[in-house]
């Protein structure tokens, strides 16, 4: 069986960019090719991760993406969410037809409307959109159930924002850099009660690229390739009312990934996790679903200090999505950060413990309608 590795990672500064999206994309792609010592012409295939019109004002995002990602007359494609792009890139290598694939995710949140109007277009025009449903509305409903059903407290949820924004201070690529206290989070505006402003992700500019290679090629390209060892994805019902918002499809996605990676005790076998938490409480819920703690135990889990940077299973040492949210690119950011931890190249936000296995998670849709889980190994 063919294996696939991440050999290199490059990402843009988390700050708002004054460059055009095309130039912004080019800089990061140029950087990763230079790091790998490859010419554009030498790359086997190129896959973009971007979202169209509502996230850029451009229809058919691949059209505008194409030059900046270096895809002129190359085999290539585009997936709409960047964890999708990543796994599609991996498939290209695993098929045995390509030795290298460059995957780039890109967006300029600063140019776009807010996340809420954008995600309202996930809604159908008949039922959900007319009643004002968007990702934050469903998240707030999900949070209320989470608090009520399990007795998790608002403070415990707020602690996720304190932790992640604190971690982001050590990540030069993070967008929202601000030390916040529990009181700050609790006192921030109740935008979608019980959700508070500092518990909701911003919208960020971001370009991130990973270079994938076949086993043979990876060994020549990098001293420390990071291997894909597990992948799982699962889709839920469209109407939030058709599901139990606290159950969802993340356990199914995680089980697929764990099975492929041979993981039976994720809490012990995974060294670090980059979890997609556009809303603070979701990190706790997702960690339950990933099997890091028991059902309803998310609150106690954060209290225990386990997911802190120096804890037993650090979660989002990069600061996560609460710090940096280039929406369609955020999945690949998680994957890139997980890879950097294994490579010991995360710099100031490198976790204290030795990382051999890392988990990256991505989700999008109302209340986490779709989840992807990626396991990377040294």
């Amino acid at each position, binding site marked *: 069986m063919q294996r696939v590795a991440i050999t290199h990672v490059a990402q843009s500064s988390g700050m708002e960019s004054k460059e055009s999206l095309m130039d912004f994309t080019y800089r990061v792609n140029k950087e990763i090719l230079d790091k790998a010592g490859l010419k554009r012409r030498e790359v086997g295939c190129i896959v973009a991760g971007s979202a169209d*019109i509502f996230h850029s004002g451009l229809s058919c995002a691949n059209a505008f993406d194409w030059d900046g990602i270096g895809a002129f*007359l190359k085999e290539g494609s585009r997936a709409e969410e960047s964890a999708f792009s990543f796994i599609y890139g991996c498939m290209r290598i695993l098929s045995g037809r390509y030795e290298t694939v460059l995957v780039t995710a890109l967006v300029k949140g600063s140019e776009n409307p807010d996340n809420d109007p954008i995600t309202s277009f996930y809604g159908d025009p008949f039922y959900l959109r007319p009643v004002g449903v968007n990702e934050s509305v469903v998240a707030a409903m999900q949070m209320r159930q989470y608090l009520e059903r399990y007795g998790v407290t608002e403070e415990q949820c707020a602690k996720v924002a304190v932790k992640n924004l604190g971690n982001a201070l050590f990540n030069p690529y993070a967008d929202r850099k601000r030390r916040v206290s529990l009181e700050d989070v609790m006192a921030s505006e109740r935008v979608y009660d019980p959700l508070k402003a500092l518990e909701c992700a911003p919208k960020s500019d971001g370009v991130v690229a990973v270079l994938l290679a076949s086993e043979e090629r990876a060994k020549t390209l990098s001293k420390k390739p990071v291997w894909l060892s597990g992948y799982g994805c699962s889709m839920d019902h469209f109407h939030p009312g058709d599901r139990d918002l606290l159950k969802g499809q993340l356990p199914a996605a995680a089980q697929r990934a764990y099975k492929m990676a041979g993981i039976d005790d994720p809490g012990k076998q995974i060294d670090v996790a980059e979890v997609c938490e556009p809303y603070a409480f979701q990190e706790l819920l997702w960690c339950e679903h990933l099997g890091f703690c028991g059902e309803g135990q998310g609150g106690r889990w954060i209290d225990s200090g386990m997911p802190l940077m120096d804890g037993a299973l650090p979660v989002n040492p990069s600061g996560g999505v609460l710090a940096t949210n280039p929406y369609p690119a955020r999945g690949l950011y998680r994957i890139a950060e997980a890879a950097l931890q294994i490579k010991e190249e995360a710099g100031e936000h490198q976790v204290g413990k030795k990382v051999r296995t890392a988990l990256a998670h991505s989700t999008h849709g109302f209340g986490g309608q779709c989840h992807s889980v990626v396991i990377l190994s040294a």
Partner: protein
Amino acid sequence: MGNAVAIIGTGQTKHGRRSDVCYPDLVREAVTAALEDAGITLKDIDGIVLGTMPSMMEGVSSTHFYFAEAMGSVGKPVLKVETCGSTGQSIGHCGFFWVASGMADIVLVVGSEKMSEGDGQATMTTVFDPFFQRTFAAGAPGVFTMQSMEWMYRFKIPEEKGREAAARISVSNHDNAMDNPHAHIRTRVTMEDVKNARIITYPVRLLDVCPASDGACAVIFATGEKARKICRKPAWIKGLGFRGEEFFYGESDKAIWMSATEAAAEAYRQAGIRNPLKELDVAEIYNPFTYQEMIFYECFGFCPRGEAPDYVLKGTFLKDGELPCCPSGGTLCSNPIGATGLIRLAEAALQVTGKAGARQVEGAKLALSHAMGGVDQFNGVTIVGSEL
């Protein structure tokens, strides 16, 4: 090269103005038909790929959410792949690679569009950048006319000859669509009808142009092993290629059209095809405009550059010609854009498995399918055969 992958089932909706169904129900119609054709159920599906045109087309974004139930994807892995008009081919390629990677045995690929619910030409305009070119955009007809004019000028094709050949293409596609129960436009037209039709953007007239259709298509990919077990006659994937040019229109030469030429060349290399005109039995080309179909003939090596009108006029691409093109009636008679490239692939698969009904090209064994996307920016090609 690599693992064998085959198509084991296809399904299409009746294409046209489908205000009788909501969008997810339209998708479900194609999915159900494909599962029935393959003789399997959703339980057998390991993963699902969806692609459509951009959100502006129907005003709902990230439709893999909206279609979760319609595609049968609840509890399953999904991928959403999109490359504008070439989406149909790109999602087919994704289905292929998912299976070829060994990560799935059977993958369902779905493409759809409900063009009656949005403004297709306004959507196309937003493919152009807001800084330089959008101001001068005139939807798809504007671009395709510019390209066709440049091509005729470059190869010194007299206007009357180009007109005559384009009209022949319109007539033959309309004739072919009469044999296709899925086709949107099913009316016969004469040469005179085409030449006297209302001008859209000179020299392109109404009957040179595809309709805006509602429709969906589903295609099921399987490993060679599964295909042999499940399917009496699978269509084997022989080669695939996808290429894109620069974003700004005018930067690459559209009369030669490198992306179309190289996408086909890549697919030919993989399939071991040296003389496409002789070796291919049938081609399903993405032909939203009659004139453009001729440029594709040249890019795909069916005839020398500048000679497509001659080949058309001598009947090379008619249903009983040397290389029948678009026996389904093609994109010219049905164009639900996000589905269209996949419909081409489905039709090619039907041809090489002898399941094309009244539109069957007798004895077809090797078929080319294709789609084009962006502002003449992208081309994708897939070649299928009756044998591996």
